């Protein structure tokens, strides 16, 4: 039976199939069905499209819980089920799902956040002409994201990887008539593809060395022959990391994420907080086995020996975290602050993977998904209330007028800042700091602490300026609370920001990466302070320092005092350290110049000189040659006689 028919048959089987992988297929296909039917025509009815889309994703969420529970209760091993996709010679690519701790947890995050965001969107986008299209795109996005989560091989992951890229393109460019949105969508997609460029090359290297693209197959092969990749081991790892670099917006491909805020705010919450950007980190964890093998470099890069791919990944992550945090400090647009904060946190996660703590990274990914979605949706509520005003300096005093939003936003801020004990962010951030310490990267640990200090600073700057003090514009003074469809998701997301901490997720994830893992004795909510007091203390200290500084600088001011004090450094931070300008000034013109050069060569050399030249010279030659036919008999007879002489000479020589 071919795969397509199989998928249809699968979709038709009852949801309560006994096999977890069937359930996973069903979860995957639900949003696709919603998206396809919306595209096919349902989109004309706003109600139907929203219902269909939300229904599908909520159903998927429920099924994800059903899939998750057995793991929570002790776990089972799922057999990947596969359908043939491409089988040619040595290349065997199947469509298969991997159901394990990692993917099931991720399923929960994706379907959960997606459900809430979609519910929120019904109110946020009310009246927009592209309402149906929006839900179609977002369902497509959810489908693609679920595909990444469930993929059991690199190629399938790559397929959905690209699909995520395109669906995010559609969502960012949702208001395509706005040039800035259209440009941002284009930029996001292209930057992502730049990363995918390396990703696929990495896949090819891994495939040719291990003969498989399946995670399980690769793991087996590498377990048998850790040196299978030979001198390309590190390069392959870094190339695969390129994919993560694009999706998770790591330096130097981070430039697209802030621009992507041109999309509708719920989209930002879904894509740029919880799911798409997390995909990179998820992939790193998924393919972690490739990064674990001993590093090796080809001869020309021999000077790098001793440095593994993971070290470089960690360094890039740490650098991104710091860079983004610095940029966030001087942004005025509420969504951009959150965007840079996201960048910073993603850098954190990548750093964790690089330091050998994928579990910590996944942990932070999980908690961050919750509170960052919350923050974005909160920001959306604020923007909605202020009539699409996004500058925090034109807000103020909103805590009174938007009580629900304010409270939930505050919870999110606390979680992001890593308020100890109470919030989930604390635990996950702590896990990262611990892994940096354990992994033997003191410098990165210091960097992490520094970023941990910046985080509360810029978040509290945002909260203080936007929610306290006097209203600085008409819009802010007349703001009123958002409708229930928007506030309830906020409340729902506030819960895990606080509560996830107590579920023991860290141990749950560690068990995935280390089969011999045993939970520490005496865990509980004070666990961090028991096991790695140094990290916990530093983390808490950084929070206190950052928070104090924020209150000190921003409480009660009407205008940002930092530019005056920091001068051009502040300008640089505000202007994102001129990376966009650098790219605009160097790479874009360079590429255009090559294009121009090729265009000129094509036009003047190939079409002109060669084709027209040959054509022209042949025609000219013909015009010249026919002058031999003078019409004069004397010429003819002479040529005839001469011809006879020549032919006879030629023949008798």
């Amino acid at each position, binding site marked *: 039976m071919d795969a397509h028919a199989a998928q249809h048959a699968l979709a038709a089987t009852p949801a309560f199939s006994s096999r977890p992988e069937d359930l996973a297929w069903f979860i995957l296909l639900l949003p696709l069905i919603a998206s396809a039917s919306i595209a096919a025509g349902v989109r004309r009815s706003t109600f139907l499209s929203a219902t269909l889309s939300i229904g599908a994703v909520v159903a998927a969420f429920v099924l994800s819980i059903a899939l998750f529970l057995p793991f929570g209760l002790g776990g089972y091993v799922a057999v990947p089920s596969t359908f043939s996709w491409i089988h040619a010679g040595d290349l065997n690519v199947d469509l298969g799902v991997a159901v394990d701790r990692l993917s099931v947890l991720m399923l929960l995050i994706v379907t959960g956040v997606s459900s809430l965001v979609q519910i929120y969107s019904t109110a946020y986008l009310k009246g927009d002409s592209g309402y149906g299209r929006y839900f179609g795109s977002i369902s497509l996005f959810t489908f693609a994201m679920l595909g990444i989560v469930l993929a059991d091989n690199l190629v399938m992951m790559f397929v959905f990887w690209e699909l995520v890229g395109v669906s995010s393109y559609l969502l960012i460019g949702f208001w395509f008539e706005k040039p800035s949105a259209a440009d941002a969508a284009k930029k996001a997609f292209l930057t992502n593809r730049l990363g995918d460029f390396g990703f696929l090359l990495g896949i090819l290297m891994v495939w040719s060395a291990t003969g498989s693209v399946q995670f399980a197959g690769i793991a087996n092969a590498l377990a048998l022959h850790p040196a299978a990749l030979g001198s390309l081991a590190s390069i392959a790892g870094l190339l695969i990391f390129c994919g993560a670099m694009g999706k998770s917006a790591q330096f130097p491909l981070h430039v697209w994420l802030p621009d992507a805020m041109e999309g509708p705010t719920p989209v930002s919450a879904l894509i740029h907080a919880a799911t798409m950007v997390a995909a990179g980190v998820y992939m790193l964890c998924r393919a972690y086995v490739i990064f674990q093998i001993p590093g090796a470099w080809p001869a020309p890069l021999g000077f790098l020996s001793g440095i593994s791919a993971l070290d470089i990944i960690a360094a890039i992550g740490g650098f991104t975290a710091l860079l983004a945090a610095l940029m966030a400090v001087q942004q005025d647009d509420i969504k951009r602050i959150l965007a840079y904060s996201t960048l910073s946190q993603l850098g954190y996660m990548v750093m964790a993977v690089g330091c050998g703590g994928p579990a910590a990274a996944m942990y932070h990914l999980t908690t961050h998904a919750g509170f960052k979605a919350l923050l974005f949706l909160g920001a959306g509520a604020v923007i909605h209330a202020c009539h699409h005003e996004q500058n925090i300096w034109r807000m103020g005093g909103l805590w009174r007028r938007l009580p629900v939003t304010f409270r939930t936003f505050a919870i999110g801020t606390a979680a992001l800042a890593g308020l100890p004990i109470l919030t989930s962010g604390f635990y996950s951030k702590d896990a990262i700091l611990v892994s940096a310490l354990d992994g033997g990267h003191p410098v990165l640990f210091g960097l992490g602490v520094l970023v941990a200090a910046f985080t509360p600073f810029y978040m509290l700057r945002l909260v203080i300026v936007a929610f306290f003090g006097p209203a600085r514009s008409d819009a802010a003074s007349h703001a009123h609370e958002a409708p229930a469809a928007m506030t309830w998701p906020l409340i729902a997301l506030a819960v895990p920001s606080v509560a996830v901490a107590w579920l023991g997720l860290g141990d749950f994830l560690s068990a995935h990466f280390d089969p011999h893992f045993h939970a520490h004795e005496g865990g509980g909510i004070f666990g961090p302070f028991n096991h790695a007091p140094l990290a916990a203390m530093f983390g808490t200290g950084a929070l206190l320092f950052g928070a104090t500084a924020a209150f000190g600088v921003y409480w009660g001011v009407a205008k940002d005092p930092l530019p005056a004090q920091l001068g051009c450094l502040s300008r640089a931070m505000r202007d994102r350290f001129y990376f966009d300008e650098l790219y605009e000034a160097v790479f874009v013109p360079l590429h255009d110049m090559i294009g121009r050069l090729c265009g000129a060569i094509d036009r003047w050399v190939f079409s002109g000189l060669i084709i027209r030249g040959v054509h022209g010279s042949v025609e000219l030659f013909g015009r010249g040659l026919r002058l031999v036919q003078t019409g004069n008999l004397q010429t003819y007879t002479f040529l005839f*006689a001469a011809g006879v*002489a020549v032919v006879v000479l030629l023949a*008798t020589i």
Partner: protein
Amino acid sequence: MPEFTDLLFYAFAGLTLLCGFLCVANPLSRNPVTSAMFLVLTIISMAGLFVLLHAFFLAAVQVLVYAGAVMVLFLFVIMLLNIKEEERRKMNIAAVGVGAVAVATLAGILVRALWHATPLATTATVEGSTRTLGRILFTRYLLPFEVLSVLLLVAMVGVILLSRKELK
């Protein structure tokens, strides 16, 4: 000691070539009539060569048909059209020179090849008499002869067609 016939050969050959030359490239006159007259002389001296080669019938035909009929036709046309000398347009010396070179090359090739021509038979016994020729003509060469009759018919029709007045 050359025999008389040998001398005759040289005489006729020389005459033939001289008249031929004067026919095609008379330095003194470019009048077609002169050319025609020298052509007649060439033909007649050739008839002499024919006699030396024992082709008596052909020698007679040569004189009768060529000199008597064909050349008269030429002269008749020249007179009819009242063609005078080739008008003294500027002679294209270069063209004639190149032509001469080409023709000389051709002549060189021919002479070089023919110099070594050897007879296939050692003794010459044939006699080009009317009787012997007639026998061959009407046996082995009957078919070309008949084809020639068609050719003559065509020529006749053609000449009539070409020279009659336009009729609409």
